[in-house]
């Protein structure tokens, strides 16, 4: 990684409509004993202030690496970054992004128990970014921290300031984490599976809170999740990732109403909902994520796709654009080609890769 450091944090650019974050053909690889692991293999998107981009995929899809790399948090001597990311007009790929952290871009993590310092009082943890970025003194920081805790909906905020993380409930800890992340008043927030470790009942409140705070502060946000259901209604645009590559990308409602990629479809079907009859088996997608060091030729998802045809195993589909809807598939869902492909597989009882397909079109 090069030693370029941005000396002073650049001023906020004048044009409010220009996208805050422009990511162009971004790639992240890690040198390993077996070869280059392409954790992120060509991602492009734009994110404006006040908008939310949802990034969806299973573990191993590259979604976490993508976001942490955008932030610049995953840094090691065997990491390679390529492509371009401009943050508010400044190119940040291959630079040390420390000057941005806390005051321009910030992150909240999945597990609030392990993400908060267990031996440091809550107030002090919130105070740190306040002192660092907003130049507050102890007294001011305490006042502001109390305000922040109120904003995130924590009752008896003054008392909480002197408590330790283990004294709070899971939901409260997550709120504290949000307060800490927003204390420095960043323009961009990465929310890495913020509700996965929480109780279902609490999830909704946290997500609502995030949405509210985002609107109030006009922040750009990326929301990472493996659950399409969480993404719906909370995001403006969606990016579906698999094996480090983008499978489908569209404004959220478009993606839901005109879903094209088989992986997106599979993700949608794997969400258990109240509509399903009781005792329905959960429908996870069989198989496991691909090897990102030496992936199989052809479409990354082919080994687990019920539409797979011969071509899928040999040729790598590129992103096809239909306005602002992009997808990488030869036999997309909801098209004639796709329907035919599925029919073929049903008739012969298996996909081109050898996965068994039932008469109803289910895998396995």
């Amino acid at each position, binding site marked *: 990684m090069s030693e370029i450091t941005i000396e002073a944090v650049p001023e906020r650019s004048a044009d409010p409509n220009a996208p805050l974050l422009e990511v162009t053909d971004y790639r992240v690889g890690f040198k390993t004993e077996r070869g280059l692991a392409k954790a992120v293999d060509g991602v492009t998107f734009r994110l404006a202030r006040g908008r939310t981009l949802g990034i969806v995929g299973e573990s191993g899809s590259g979604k976490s690496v993508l976001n942490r790399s955008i*932030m610049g*948090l995953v840094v090691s001597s065997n990491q390679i970054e390529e492509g371009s990311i401009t943050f508010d007009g400044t190119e940040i790929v291959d630079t040390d992004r420390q000057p941005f952290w*806390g005051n321009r871009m910030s992150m909240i*993590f999945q597990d609030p128990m*392990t993400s908060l*310092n267990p031996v440091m009082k809550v107030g002090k943890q919130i105070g740190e970014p306040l002192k660092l970025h907003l130049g507050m003194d102890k007294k001011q920081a305490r006042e502001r921290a109390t305000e922040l805790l109120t904003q995130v909906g924590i009752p008896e905020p003054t008392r909480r300031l002197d408590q330790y993380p*283990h004294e709070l409930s899971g939901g409260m800890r997550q709120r504290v984490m949000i307060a800490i992340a927003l*204390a420095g008043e960043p323009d961009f927030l990465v929310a890495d599976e913020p509700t996965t470790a929480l109780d279902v009942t609490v999830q909704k409140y946290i997500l609502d809170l995030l949405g509210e705070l985002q609107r109030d502060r006009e922040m750009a946000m990326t929301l990472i999740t493996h659950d399409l259901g969480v993404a719906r209604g909370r995001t403006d645009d969606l990016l579906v990732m698999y094996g480090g590559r983008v499978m489908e990308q569209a404004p959220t409602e478009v993606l839901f109403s005109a879903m094209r990629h088989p992986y997106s479809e599979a993700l949608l079907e794997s969400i258990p909902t109240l509509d399903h009859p009781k005792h329905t088996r959960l429908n996870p997608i069989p198989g496991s994520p691909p090897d990102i060091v030496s992936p199989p030729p052809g479409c990354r998802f082919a080994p687990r796709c019920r539409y797979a045809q011969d071509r899928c195993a040999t040729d790598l589909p590129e992103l096809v654009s239909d306005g602002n809807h992009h997808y990488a598939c030869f036999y997309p869902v909801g098209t004639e080609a796709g329907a035919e492909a599925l029919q073929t597989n049903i008739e012969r009882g298996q996909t081109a890769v050898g996965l068994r397909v039932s008469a109803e079109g289910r895998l396995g």
Partner: protein
Amino acid sequence: MTLARQLALRLGLFILLLLAVSMITFGAMNLLGDPLFNILGPISGCEDAISESGESVTVESSDGLAQNCGPDQIQAVQDAKEQYYLDKSLPERYVRWLGDAVQGDFGTSFANQGESVTNIVRDKLPVSLLLMVMAQTIAVVIAIPWGVWAASRAGKASDRVSTIGSFGLVSMPNFALGIILYYVLIVRLGWFPFRYEDDDLWSRINSLFVPAITLALPISAVYQRLLRTDLITTLQDDFILMARSKGVPRRSVLFKHALRPSMFSFITVFGINAGALIGGTLVIERIFQIPGAGSEIVTAVFREDFPVVLAFVVIITAGFVLLNILVDLLYSILDPRVRT
């Protein structure tokens, strides 16, 4: 269980242990040794000499030489027995000793014409304590920056060199290290005094400096390794990443966030190490000719001067156990999760 109750239990155990230690030491010395001989020398052989006529009788004493046992000698024997309660039973002698000891009177030395043991302790122990405190302080002062530095460079070449260095320091027996440092720093370079100088606090510290670093270096290597290990583990925790993402600069992350939760192994060993430190001090005092408790114990052991040995053993052991209790307390202060 509450802190107070815990403390009470620990103190109770402490007292039991001290009793056991003192009993064992007292018993062993009195059963396996010959107190009377140690006090009086060969005259002790006159114990059994009875002459009806009151004349001098020649007796062969325990070292094989002829000893003249006249009325004076017999009187000396009887005086000694009275003074040191030697004609009483062992348990009774122990209880007498214990009773006195608890009040701060550790009896009189067998040698030195019955000098008060308490005075001897009071003279010699502070020197050793100063040495040990200096050694531990130096060790910690070296270990923390070293450990942090090593953790931040984990896996790199400089870290490997540091590891080898640590290993080397730990494997070098402290008396060997002491000889080397004595030779280099005192004999050859002459930077520090040959003898212990007692003029003021500064000269004392100066005289104890080389012995202190002799003790401190291997200990600091151990502390540093533990700190490094724990730091590396802690640095993988999510909250470190979170702290970074807040914009906290690297150095602050290391010292303000990572260091405190990583100190536990190091502190645990701190207590256990005190035992090794005490042993090391004994030997080092010999090499550097420091008039501390260590030198005194060894001399007393050779003379079989039981009261002195007993007093030092009990006091030092008490200190050691107490220190471990304090370390446990410190543990719970540092980690708030343990408190509740």
